[in-house]
């Protein structure tokens, strides 16, 4: 039998005005197990808390019920109070007689009656409370960053600077991501490579950072502080430790007609290649889909020219398994396919390009050496039409995306401005629905495009583009001018919507991290915990969480890093003790609980049990990892035998509350 103390708070007049607190204290004092019952003006005050502590000592209380405001308000306070007096903090229950009683009822008799019932329910529960101790689990002091774009690089650098080792897993042969393909950045117009490549070098040279390029995460096990991750490092058929990145092989390789991904297929590369000059790691990679040697066993040119002897046609995929305390997802984005939007003739004319393709066409390291030329004939374009919101802000999900891709307005302003600056003989039209420029110096930037560079911003949309006689006939509306426009353009640039990288969905499944319907990772709280996934130990960096521009990505990357550093700086983690707990003697091992657990906290082991007549039976039973379990209780109801119960909210406790209320 518990020795329970009841403390009824007046909360000034907040409770006492409508609830007869004396009567409540007296009525509850008569409940079985209650050895002390009192009331006080402010239980949460210093003296109120001292009163509780004194009562605990004096009456040797084993359980405490506080009739006061919502537990959401002061449960933590009173738990601490009691803990200081030597009582287990989980032996405290709160009866909410303010928000859910005194404040909603006017009649004192009714409110008092209800307060007594709520108090009884809390007493009934405390009778069945058991002291709970928060467990701890150690933290592996190493972080994994999945994705080596600007988000991943920044996060890794920040974590590494704090002194923790961090690995970057990048699926491409080089880190750098989308930013490497961008020419200039808004709103400052500085060169993307000039600000990114030093960071790439920093990452490569940082002692705490290990870049695992051309690799993918295969399997994730474990939980916050203790992840075990299996990474497949694909064979690049070049020994990374020997290759000097001289590039001789990439010049000699006879396979020349392979579309160059880095330039989005606007030019070609060889079967052995280094994606671009500043690639990190700067080592060659053989594309097994095109390499004659790997396909037929005949050729071997690269091997012959390589003075470092780095070529190894027999190289195999390498499986790396490492332990991590935290995982950062930085899988980024990609532009959506333009296939459903053929009114813009993307598939019909090479002169209709996406904005990212335009970046390459304007980049000094791009296929045209930085001179803007029409892909079809290499001529200098005079009239350019930009179309905004291609695939963004669409109704339903049949064709495009329902969301705004956020970055298009700004990069289009940038493109328009750069073109007008470099080629003053051009006419540039931007068709927009809305121009969205929230951001520091963003609207100023857009206004400059209009006012200083004379870009024609037209409120309206392009209806269709028809390639005809070497021109692109653009039919569009000018809503403010009240006219339909017909423009003979040389190039049309589509601001394609962006979507999460395709690898994100399977990764989310491995991480048991949740995603929204658009495959963007869900944050733990949209406002207050924007860089954490609801799954503990998983953090979000960059566009995998939602469309972002570079400054925002870098900011979020830093925020994610700081969260990781906060986690890794702890030696161990305190777990929420209100977790699910299976009774192994009753567990059937049926896996029902596992199927509903959103955190993957449940695993199964075959365990020997003593059977009747000195026999031993081996049974499959569930085990809950208390470090992973968040205590939702979904498993407790899925379990048909009732073997799974939730500590702190056990079946018996809830039933006791029900009984007390319905009495």
């Amino acid at each position, binding site marked *: 039998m518990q020795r329970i103390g009841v403390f009824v708070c007046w909360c000034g007049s907040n409770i006492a005005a409508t609830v007869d607190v004396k009567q409540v204290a007296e009525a509850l004092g*008569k409940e*079985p197990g209650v050895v002390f019952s009192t009331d006080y003006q402010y239980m949460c005050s210093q003296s109120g808390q001292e009163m509780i502590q004194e009562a605990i000592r004096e009456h040797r209380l084993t359980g405490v019920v506080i009739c006061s405001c919502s537990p959401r308000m002061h449960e933590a306070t009173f738990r601490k109070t009691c803990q200081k007096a030597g009582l287990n903090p989980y032996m405290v229950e709160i009866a909410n007689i303010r928000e859910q009683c005194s404040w909603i009822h006017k009649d004192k008799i009714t409110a008092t009656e209800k307060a007594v019932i709520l108090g009884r329910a809390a007493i009934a529960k405390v009778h069945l409370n058991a002291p709970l101790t928060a467990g701890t689990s150690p933290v592996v002091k190493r972080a994994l960053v999945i994705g080596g774009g600007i988000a991943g690089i920044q996060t890794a650098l920040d974590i590494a600077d704090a002194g923790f080792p961090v690995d970057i897993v990048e699926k491409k042969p080089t880190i750098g991501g989308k930013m490497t393909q961008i020419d200039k950045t808004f709103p400052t117009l500085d060169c993307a490579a000039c600000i990114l490549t030093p960071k790439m070098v920093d990452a490569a040279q940082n002692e705490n950072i290990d870049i695992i390029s051309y690799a993918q995460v295969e399997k994730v096990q474990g939980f916050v502080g203790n992840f075990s991750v299996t990474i497949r490092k694909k064979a690049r058929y070049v020994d990374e430790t020997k290759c000097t990145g001289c590039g001789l092989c990439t010049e000699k390789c006879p396979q020349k007609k392979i579309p160059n991904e880095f330039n989005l297929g606007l030019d070609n590369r060889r079967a052995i290649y280094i994606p671009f000059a500043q690639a990190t790691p700067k080592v060659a990679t053989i594309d097994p889909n095109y390499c004659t040697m790997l396909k037929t066993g005949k050729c071997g040119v690269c091997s012959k020219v390589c003075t470092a002897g780095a070529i190894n046609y027999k190289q195999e995929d390498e499986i790396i398994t490492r332990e991590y305390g935290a995982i950062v997802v930085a899988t980024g984005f990609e532009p959506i396919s333009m296939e459903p939007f053929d009114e813009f003739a993307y598939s019909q004319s090479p002169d209709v390009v996406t904005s990212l393709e335009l970046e390459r066409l304007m980049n000094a390291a791009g296929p045209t050496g930085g001179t803007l030329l029409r892909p079809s004939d290499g001529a200098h374009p005079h009239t350019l039409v930009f179309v905004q919101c291609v695939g963004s802000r669409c109704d339903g999900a049949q064709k495009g995306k329902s969301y705004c891709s956020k970055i298009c307005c700004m990069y289009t302003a940038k493109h328009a401005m750069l073109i007008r600056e470099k080629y003053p003989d051009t006419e540039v039209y931007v068709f927009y629905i809305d121009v969205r420029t929230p951001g520091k110096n963003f609207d100023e930037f857009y206004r400059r495009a209009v006012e200083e560079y004379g870009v024609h911003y037209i409120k309206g949309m392009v209806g269709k583009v028809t390639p005809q006689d070497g021109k692109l006939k653009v039919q569009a509306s000018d809503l403010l001018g009240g006219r339909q426009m017909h423009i003979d353009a040389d190039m049309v640039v589509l601001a394609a919507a962006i979507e999460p990288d395709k690898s994100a969905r399977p990764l989310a499944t491995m991480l048991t991290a949740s995603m929204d319907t658009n495959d963007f990772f869900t944050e733990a709280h949209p406002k207050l915990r924007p860089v954490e996934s609801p799954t503990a130990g998983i953090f979000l960096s960059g566009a995998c969480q939602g469309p972002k521009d570079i400054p925002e990505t870098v900011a979020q990357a830093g925020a994610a890093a700081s969260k990781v550093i906060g986690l890794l700086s702890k030696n161990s983690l305190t777990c929420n003790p209100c977790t699910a707990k299976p009774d192994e003697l009753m567990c059937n091992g049926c896996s029902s609980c596992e199927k509903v657990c959103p955190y993957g906290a449940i695993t199964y082991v075959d365990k020997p049990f003593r059977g*009747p*007549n000195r026999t031993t039976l081996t049974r499959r039973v569930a085990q809950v990892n208390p470090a992973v379990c968040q205590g939702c209780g979904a498993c407790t109801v899925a379990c048909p035998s009732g073997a799974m119960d939730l500590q702190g909210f056990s079946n018996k406790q809830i039933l006791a509350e029900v*009984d*007390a209320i*319905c*009495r």
Partner: protein
Amino acid sequence: MKIWKLDRLQDLFAALAGERTLYIPADVAGQAKFTPWEPGMEMTKALNTNRSAKDLFFPQVEDLAAFKITGRQIQVEDNREDVEDFVIFGVRACDARSFSILDKVFLEEPADTYYKNRRDHATVMTLACSRPEATCFCTALGIDPQAPGGDVSCWVEGENLYLQANTQKGEALLEKLPAMEEGEKPQGDASVFDRLPLKDVDFSVFSEKALLHWFNSPVWEELSRSCLGCGSCTFVCPTCQCYDVKDFDTGTKVKRFRCWDSCMYSDFTMMAHGTNRPTQKERFRQRFMHKLVYYPNNHDGEIGCVGCGRCLRKCPISMNIVKVAKALKEGSV
């Protein structure tokens, strides 16, 4: 012997039910069951009720006492209600014999007052059998289905119901009924009882050998293997008399009641250390050892089975006392 015309059976029921509750075997929701008679209620066509007649003396659930808790005071309440007189009509010879078996358990000192109370207030009118089921084997246990006993024995023959009082209670009951013609019952055809397939099951062997001989028989292992551990045999059995005592907390009171229990259940006679019959083999053995060996050992050789055949029809896997008795005798399965 008194005679009542069968076509006026409802009048007999009305007369019997005049002063007390009359239970007759009637069909309720498709099942034959001893039911308080109401005008117009017909007897079932079934040979016997689904559940046995023991329910009327030893109901499945029965309140024993209550504890009222006020503050920290506990008050004991004896809620035993006074049982009024009642009559059971249509009890077959097997069930009638089961009463004497139960009596030896419940009425021995110290008597079970709850049971005794009901027994004292009941008058049992039995009904002789003429169309037995193939599962009937009361004759193998020395029961004469045509001489069913009880306070009043009844026979159906032709157009008539013949009634004969066997006890004072029975006589008193018949006296209160409207005057009846006297007469002798014509001798009916009893040859069907000689054709009963189970008439020769030998129950005498169980007194011939020592208790441990049967207890240690190798056949239990095999026989119990398919047993599901349900309680259907126990609960339809007219002689099973085990119960459990339980408390129910209503919130304002604790009600103590007893309810049937089955030795086939894994939690039967559960003790602090666990169960003393850990596998279904021991539980299964307990039930049959009790009927065939323990009970006769304690009660002058009387077998604790009345051959009603209910378990033969109700066991989900068709295991039953006849199969057990035969297997035990043969010593193997």
